[in-house]
């Protein structure tokens, strides 16, 4: 669906030369959500804008459904975008009018754009507000309209730059649910966000960019697994017998009252569980890293020399 090869962007010349993006290669398949993460100024927005054809790469190639948005304007029919820091909508127009206008702008026939706009408004729960000027809507509703507008031409790739920024919890949940639905429809979604819990919840894959270069790219699950330790925390109901404590300790676990901590092989874990029988178990939990820990570790630990 999306393929970028060796994308680089250099701004300025001479002493003011600044390489904002260095050799970024990304692929994104149908129905997949890729969270594109990085600190401020790491090159996320520049990369997204290069994909959307708004910033011309110094080197490298972008193809969306086999077409290059920098050389073939029709490639833009496959791309929908909600860009950060932008209103993305005409505030004097209502949601219905915005949808029809942007539909036509994306080469959808006017009547089709109107019909599809109404469908999207109904799906996004905005039917009642369809004739209210956008500037009178709440920030959450405006963001939903912006996402609806980005979908009006039925694009195969949706670029969302900080879609939950500045939204309250409820609106943020709504947007997350929408992103899930959009991916389930078979669209590819490239998402940037600083809210790593959002990225963890929504993404199938994660790419982390630092100082213009991708420092990690793999499935969210694999990345979290890689950074998770193999330590288990068990909790039992009631006291263990001295014999049980002895066996458990022999297997390498430490016991503190009803809490047992174990860091060993999975075979011994089952032996430990057998040793605990018949004391009721309250919880068995493996230490699991969250995306925030992974992100901070990767971003802080990468020595500059390797970049």
């Amino acid at each position: 669906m999306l393929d970028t090869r060796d994308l680089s962007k250099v701004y300025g010349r001479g002493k003011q030369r600044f390489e904002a993006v260095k050799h970024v290669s990304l692929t994104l398949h149908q129905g997949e959500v890729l969270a594109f993460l990085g600190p401020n100024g790491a090159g996320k927005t520049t990369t997204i804008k290069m994909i959307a054809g708004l910033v011309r790469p110094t080197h490298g190639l972008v193809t969306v459904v086999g077409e290059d948005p920098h050389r073939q304007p029709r490639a833009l029919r496959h791309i929908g975008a909600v860009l950060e820091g932008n209103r993305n909508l005409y505030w004097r127009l209502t949601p219905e009018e915005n949808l029809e206008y942007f539909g036509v702008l994306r080469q959808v026939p006017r009547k089709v754009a109107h019909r599809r706009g109404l469908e999207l408004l109904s799906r996004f729960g905005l039917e009642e507000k369809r004739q209210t000027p956008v500037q009178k809507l709440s920030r959450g509703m405006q963001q939903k309209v912006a996402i609806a507008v980005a979908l009006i031409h039925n694009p195969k790739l949706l670029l969302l730059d900080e879609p939950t920024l500045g939204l309250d919890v409820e609106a943020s949940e709504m947007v997350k649910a929408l992103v899930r639905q959009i991916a389930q429809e078979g669209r590819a979604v490239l998402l940037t966000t600083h809210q790593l819990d959002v990225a963890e919840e929504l993404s199938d894959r994660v790419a982390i960019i630092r100082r213009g270069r991708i420092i990690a790219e793999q499935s969210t699950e694999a990345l979290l697994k890689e950074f998770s330790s193999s330590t288990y925390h068990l909790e039992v109901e009631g006291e263990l017998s001295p014999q049980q404590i002895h066996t458990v300790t022999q297997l390498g676990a430490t016991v503190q009252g009803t809490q047992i901590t174990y860091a060993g092989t999975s075979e011994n874990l089952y032996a430990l569980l057998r040793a605990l029988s018949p004391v009721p178990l309250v919880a068995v939990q493996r230490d699991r890293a969250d995306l925030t820990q992974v992100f901070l570790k990767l971003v802080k630990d990468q020595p500059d020399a390797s970049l």
Partner: protein
Amino acid sequence: MIDLLYAELKRTWIQFIRYPTEVISGIVIILAVFYGLFSSAQYIAGPGFAFGDRLDSVVLGYAMWTLIISVNNDIAINLQIEAETGTLEQVFLSPYGAPRVFLARAFASLALRLLILVVVLLLLMGLSGSRLAFPPILLLPLASLLMAGYGLAFLLGAVALVFKRVQQILGIFQFLLLFLLAAPLEESTGLMQYLRFLLPMLPSTGLLRDLMARGVGLDWATYGLALLNGMVYFVIGLFVFRWAEATAKQRGSLSGY
């Protein structure tokens, strides 16, 4: 393309009409100025004198002056406003390509301005009992004038895309515009007689003066050159605008302001 033109007309109209107080105050200002013209206070017209002393000429001269100023500034000002409000990049995501979108926008805003002018003039004719009469052949040099005017508008739009803040340039440009609209270079002798065909809009304004003030018929050969002048400036404007779009994308400064 028809759908795009319709969509731009609708968007322009809705944005204009959404807040009635703005519409009313705008129309009252235009009405006041034109009422001044109708009351023979011709000094109010400023450069309108260029098209003759009759009421018809003064009114037409002023209407054209305001129209050309707004046409020239239209693209640059809208680019800047949209960059500030954050819709510009969405416009550049259109598969139509920016020049076609801005061309459709230019037609839409011209249609709105002409509509307002016609409504105001009809209102005033009704109020004052005066009658204005223009030979329909005026539309020909007016068309070539507007083509060159839009060529300049795209040039200024290109400046706005690359250099962003353009208010000062637009201010200075009005003096140049005054020269292009009011300087009667068609009466000059020597080299300037020919050089005037190279300057934007001048051949068309000369023809308008022939028709309005001098009562001379349309010289078709001169009109051919005026039309060519309009087309050449229009094409230059579009070409430079495309270059500016590519430059802004190269610099990554499309949405900056």
